[in-house]
């Protein structure tokens, strides 16, 4: 009797195992494309580049191991590396807050049922659709050129013409204006977030006599904080990766004043074919992004409000 039960249990277990194996097989079958890509095109190459970052490698001859030399050189002996870090930080911390502030401001303007809002939303989103293209970069250079339209418009207000793109003082600002101009995606995300805030909150606050500014601080910002968080993470990472604008408009110049990190990395890798050094640069970029993302995530607990957790 006991034996029979045991056999039955074993049969059941082995059937369960068989089912699980079948499920595993099917599951891995479905995610296979991604898994192959992940192992072969991301993890594999990344580990390889970690190795290359400790070597001297020009693609043609075999890599030679030089230990930490690339990293030591970078930190102690490479002024352009520090310049690139500085420029990229100014770019990220200049453009991301401005972009998000604009996006939120415009989203609040559009968060109503007035006529024509749909059309306005489209109008304000168009620059974001086209802004990253080569066409706009090429045109931006001329728009802000010495004889460009911006200077002509400014001259109406008596402002003397500025060499936006070629002057060390203004080149980076010209690029920041370009990316802030493309605030469309965060704007749409903010707008969806604003629409999800229950109107009763504002009504109750009005009854209690809270003015619009107070309502913004006490209701809108906390209720919107998960969306602000998402936008902040995404825009910061995008900012560190920025390439096209500098590469096409200012070519990193004048005097390296717009040398984005990505542009410097590109130059090292594909103009000098110094793959070892470029790999080291890429790993430092990964570290920087990881530190910032971790920082935003860590502080998130204190300022991001999640309704399901009851908030805090």
């Amino acid at each position, binding site marked *: 009797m006991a034996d029979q039960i045991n056999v039955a249990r074993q049969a059941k277990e082995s059937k369960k195992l068989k089912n699980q194996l079948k499920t595993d097989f099917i*599951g891995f079958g479905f995610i296979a*494309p*991604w898994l192959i*890509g992940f192992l072969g095109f991301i993890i*594999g190459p*990344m580990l390889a580049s970690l190795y290359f970052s400790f070597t001297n490698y020009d693609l043609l001859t075999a890599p030679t191991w030089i230990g930490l030399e690339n990293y030591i050189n970078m930190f102690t002996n490479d002024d352009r590396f520090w310049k690139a870090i500085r420029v990229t930080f100014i770019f990220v911390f200049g453009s991301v807050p401005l972009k998000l502030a604009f996006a939120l401001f415009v989203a609040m303007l559009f968060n109503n049922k007035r006529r024509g809002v749909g059309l306005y939303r489209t109008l304000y989103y168009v620059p974001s659709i086209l802004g990253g293209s080569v066409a706009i970069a*090429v045109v931006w250079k001329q728009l802000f050129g010495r004889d460009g339209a911006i200077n002509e418009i400014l001259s109406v207000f008596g402002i003397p013409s500025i060499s936006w793109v070629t002057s060390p003082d203004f080149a980076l600002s010209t690029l920041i204006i370009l990316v802030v101009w493309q605030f469309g995606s965060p704007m749409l995300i903010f707008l969806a977030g604003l629409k999800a805030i229950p109107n009763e909150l504002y009504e109750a606050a009005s009854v209690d006599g809270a003015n619009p500014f107070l309502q913004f601080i006490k209701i809108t910002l906390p209720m919107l904080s998960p969306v602000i968080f*998402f936008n902040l993470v995404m825009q910061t*990472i995008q900012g560190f990766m920025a390439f096209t604008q500098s590469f096409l408009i200012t070519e990193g110049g004048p005097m390296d004043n717009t040398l984005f990190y990505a542009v410097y990395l590109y130059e090292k890798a594909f103009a000098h074919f110094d793959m070892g050094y470029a790999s080291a640069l890429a790993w430092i970029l*990964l570290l920087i992004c990881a530190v910032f993302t971790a920082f935003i995530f860590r502080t998130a607990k204190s300022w991001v409000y999640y309704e399901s957790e009851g908030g805090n």
Partner: protein
Amino acid sequence: MRKNKSLKTVIYHGSIWLLGILMIYPILWTIASSLKPENEIFRHAASLIPSDWKWENYVQGWEGFGNLSFSTFFLNSAFVTTMVVIGTLFSSTLVAFGFARINFRFRTPLFICMIVTLMLPQQVTLIPQYILFHNLNWVNTYLPLIVPAFIGGIPFFIFLMIQFIRGIPRELDEAAYMDGASTFGIFWRIILPLTTPALATVAIFSFYWTWDDFMTPLVYLNDTKLYTVALGLQMFSDPSSVSAWGPMFAMSVASIVPQLLVFLFFQKYLVEGITAGGVKG
């Protein structure tokens, strides 16, 4: 009271129009410049109305440089973009279904890996991938641009599809399973038809990002015959080779026409995609 309200409405619409014109001005200016006579582009730079409509700028620009016309670049871009869109749809739907619906082992750790790669800067994998493709002899072919799409190269799309599939009631799968459908049958006949709106979103975004992409073709394509529109335009606008500005502006406009058209016709899916990724996530 009523008068006050209508005044407010006027101020509201007035200021939005004013700001909107500022927003759209660079694009209108580009279009205007593409139609201006050569000597006018920088002389009356700010004006949006050409004194004489020079449609020839487009004809002249289309001829391109060397022996290469913009027809070549557009065909190249169309080919690469189509392949990438197909690849992205293929990989993102399959993988998303696997993650969203099948309880295989190691699902959660693998899912976390995917989410982490969502935030991986492109430059970090650029160099090792280049070395890999270089060793595979893929440089100067379209393979480095196309193959990654087929193996889930942009995890954002997988993420978007997972979000969408999770919204489809599981009872549908179970009912089909009871009727004897296989897992693939459920995927193909039940889930896939229901995800059409999400598929449209994925297709549109991958179209945009591929059409716009500058860095990947810049790194991998050396032969000008293989250039995409983005690269062709960059070469065409090179200060050392620009002989006439009108055609340069004309080709800039031409290069963004496909994006504008897609935007006008499929706006809805675009807005849905952006907000689904940001808010529900």
